[in-house]
C-alpha cells in the first residue's frame, strides 16, 4: 500500500486533472419520456401536470407532480430537497396497494423533482362539489359505502405498515375513472414503528384544521394513528352532508411561531359531539391544552340529529360515524375495526367500483392546455379554476425543516 502511494506521488497527468466532474445531469429527461397534455393544479409544493408516455408500450395517463425549487431572484439554485418531498419519494417508492396512489417513477432533472403518478380523474373534493352545485343532491349510498370502504382499506394498509398519513382530507383522496379510491399526498406521512422522539417535535402542526383530531387540538405530543381515523370520520360526514362537518376558523400562528389553541375548531366539534368529559375520555386531563376547555359551555351530543338533518337514514352508518368521531383516541375505531363494521358487512355487497350502479356523470378534471410547459418555473397566481380550490381551505403551515 505505502509503496503504491509513493509511486503515485508524482503530479497526476494533465489529461486526468483537466477533467473535473461535470455537474449532475439526469439520465432520464422528463420531456423525452412524457408528452405533457396540460396543467392540472398548483399548490405550495409546486405544480401538477397531466401527461402521456411517449413510450409506445406504456399506455394510460399520468399525473406528474413537479416540486418547485426555491428561487433566489431569477436564478434557480439547488437548495436541498424539502422534507415533505423526501417523505413522499421514500414512502411512495416503498408502498404498493390498490388504494394508495401508485408512483410510476421519479425523475430528478434540472434542479427539479418530477414524481410521475398514475392519473386519477376525480377526487373527493370535486365529487362533493359536483353534488352540492348548483343544487344539493345526495351522493348515492352505494357510492359512499364503496368510497369509505376503499379509503379505510388504504388507511388500514398504511397503518399495518406503521405509516401515519397525517393529512387526510377530501382533496387528497383520488378516485379513478373506474371508481377506485387512491390515497394521495404522503408529504406529511411518517413511519411510527416506535413512538419516536416526541412526534410533536417534528411538524408542529399536522392535518388541515377541519379534519384535525381533538387530541391534536389539545396539544397531544404522542398522538397515534387514530388521528387518521378521525379525519376519515370527518370525510364520511362530508360525503353525507356535502359540506365539512366541523368548519372552524383557523387561529393563525403568532410571530413567535407558537401554535395557538384552535378554540373555534374545538367549538364546532363540541356543538355537534357534546363537551368531552373525563368519564368519556379519561386521559383528556393530561393533555397540555386541557385547561383551555373550562370556558366552553356544556353541550350534549347531537350527532344523531345532525345525521338525520343532512338526510342520512342508515342506522349502521350513524353507528360507524360515531365510532370514528370518538373523542378518546383509545376508544376510536381502528381502520381494521371500521372495515369489519356492520355498515359494510350488512346490506348489499360493497363494490370496488365506487360508481357502480350510479348514473351520475362526474366532470373530468380540468386540464388547461394553454399551460403545458412543464419546464418553466411556476407562474404565480395560477389556480385550479371551476372548483373550490385547495388553497382556499385553511391550509396548515408545514414546517419546512429540510431546507
Amino acid at each position: 500500500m505505502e509503496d503504491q502511494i509513493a509511486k503515485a506521488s508524482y503530479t497526476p497527468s494533465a489529461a486526468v486533472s483537466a477533467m473535473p466532474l461535470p455537474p449532475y445531469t439526469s439520465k432520464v429527461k422528463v420531456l423525452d419520456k412524457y408528452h405533457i397534455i396540460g396543467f392540472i393544479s398548483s399548490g405550495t409544493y409546486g405544480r401538477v401536470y397531466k401527461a402521456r408516455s411517449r413510450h409506445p408500450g406504456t399506455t394510460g395517463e399520468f399525473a406528474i407532480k413537479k416540486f418547485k425549487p426555491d428561487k433566489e431572484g431569477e436564478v434557480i439554485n439547488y437548495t436541498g430537497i424539502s422534507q415533505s418531498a423526501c417523505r413522499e419519494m421514500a414512502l411512495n417508492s416503498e408502498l404498493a396497494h390498490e388504494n394508495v396512489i401508485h408512483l410510476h417513477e421519479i425523475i430528478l432533472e434540472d434542479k427539479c423533482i418530477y414524481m410521475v403518478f398514475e392519473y386519477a380523474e376525480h377526487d373527493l373534493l370535486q365529487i362533493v362539489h359536483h353534488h352540492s352545485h348548483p343544487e344539493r343532491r345526495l351522493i348515492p349510498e352505494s357510492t359512499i359505502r364503496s368510497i369509505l370502504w376503499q379509503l379505510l382499506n388504504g388507511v388500514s394498509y398504511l397503518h399495518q405498515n406503521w405509516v401515519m398519513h397525517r393529512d387526510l382530507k377530501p382533496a387528497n383522496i383520488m378516485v379513478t375513472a373506474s371508481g377506485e379510491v387512491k390515497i394521495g399526498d404522503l408529504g406529511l406521512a411518517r413511519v411510527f414503528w416506535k413512538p419516536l422522539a416526541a412526534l410533536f417535535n417534528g411538524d408542529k402542526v399536522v392535518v388541515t384544521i377541519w379534519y384535525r383530531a381533538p387530541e391534536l387540538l389539545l396539544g397531544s405530543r404522542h398522538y397515534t394513528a387514530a388521528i387518521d381515523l378521525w379525519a376519515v370520520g370527518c370525510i364520511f360526514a362530508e360525503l353525507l352532508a356535502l359540506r365539512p362537518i366541523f368548519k372552524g376558523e383557523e387561529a393563525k400562528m403568532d410571530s413567535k411561531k407558537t401554535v395557538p389553541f384552535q378554540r373555534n375548531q374545538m367549538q364546532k366539534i363540541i356543538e355537534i359531539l357534546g363537551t368531552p368529559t373525563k368519564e368519556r375520555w379519561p386521559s383528556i386531563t393530561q393533555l397540555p391544552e386541557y385547561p383551555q376547555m373550562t370556558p366552553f359551555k356544556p353541550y350534549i351530543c347531537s350527532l344523531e340529529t345532525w345525521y338525520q338533518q343532512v338526510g342520512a337514514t342508515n342506522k349502521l352508518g350513524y353507528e360507524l360515524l360515531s365510532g370514528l368521531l370518538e373523542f378518546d383516541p383509545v376508544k376510536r375505531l381502528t381502520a381494521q375495526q371500521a372495515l369489519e363494521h356492520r355498515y359494510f358487512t350488512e346490506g348489499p355487497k360493497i363494490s370496488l367500483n365506487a360508481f357502480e350502479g350510479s348514473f351520475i356523470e362526474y366532470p373530468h378534471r380540468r386540464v388547461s392546455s394553454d399551460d403545458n410547459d412543464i419546464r418553466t418555473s411556476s407562474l404565480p397566481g395560477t389556480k385550479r379554476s371551476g372548483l373550490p380550490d385547495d388553497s382556499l381551505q385553511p391550509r396548515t403551515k408545514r414546517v419546512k425543516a429540510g431546507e
Partner: protein
Amino acid sequence: MAANFWTSTQRAHWQLTREKIADMRRGLDEEDTNKGLGLAFPLPDHKQLQLYFHHCLQRLARRLQLRQQPLATAETYLKRFYLKVSIRDTNPYLMLSTCVYLACKMEECPQHIRSVVNEARALFQEFIPQDIAKLAECEFHLISELNSYLIVHHPYRTLMEVQGPFALKLSPDEIMAAWSFLNDSYITDLILLYPPHTIAFTAIFLAVFVRPAIHTQANLNASGSTALGMSTAAGAGGSIVQPSVGQNAAVPATSGINPQNPSSARLSQMSEWFAESGVEMEAIIECTQEMISLYDAWETWTDKVCRESVARLIRGRQLS
C-alpha cells in the same frame, strides 16, 4: 413497505450477494483504469476506505449530535452509492456529508443544510465547498443513484425487540456490547448482504459468546452510563453516537473481540434460544467471520494513507 422488511425495497433491490458486490466494485475499478484515473489517483483498498469513511461519518455525526439510527442510514446510503459510482468520480467528503444530510431528513431529525455544511467544513476544511448548492446538487446525484429507495431497515430495532416478548434476558453489559457490535457492522458490507435481524442475532451471539476484551478493562466506568443512556434513548431511535468495540480497542495489541467464558447454564440457555428463534446459524457464522476480519484489519489501520490519497484525489480532480 415502510415497516416490513420482507416487502421492502431494501430486500428487493439492496440485498446483494458477495459475488454481486465484488462484480460491481471490479466493474468500477476497471472503468477507472481505462480512464487512467486508477493510476493517477491510487486509493487504498475498500476495507481501508470503509474504515476511513466510517470514522469521518462518525465524527460528523458527533458534531451534529446525531443518534445512531440516522448515522446508520447515512452509512448505508454511502455504501450503496459507492457500488454504483466510482469514488474517484466524487468528492468523498461532500458525498458523505450529503448522506448525513439526507439521512437526517429520512430519520425525522432534519438538520439545516447550512449547519451540515458548516460542521463538515469544520472537519474537512477546504474540501467542502462553502456554497450549499454544491451539497444540494450532490443530494440529487445520491437520490438518483439510490433509485429513491431511501427507507433503510436497521438491526438496532431487532436488538431492542428481542429483549421484550422473546424474553431473551440480556444483561445491560451484553446489550451494550451487542449495540457496539452493531455500530461496527456498518464498516463492513453486512447491511448490503443480510436481513437486519440476522445482523442483530450476530451481534447478540458475539456479545454473549465472544465479548469484547476491552469491556472488562478500560471501559468499565463508561459502560454503566452508556448502557443506561441506551435504554432510555432506545425508544427515540437509538442512542447518541457511541464509541464502538473497535475503537475501544485503542488499548495496544488487543483484538476487538476475545472469547468469553460465560457460565455453562448461560451457554445452554442461549443455545436453546438461538435454536428456537429459527435463525440460520450458517448466516450468523458468516457474519461473525466478516466482523472478525474487520477487527483484524482495524488493528493495523491508520487514517493517514486514506486521508492523503483522498486529498490528492479531490485536489487533482478539482472536486471541491
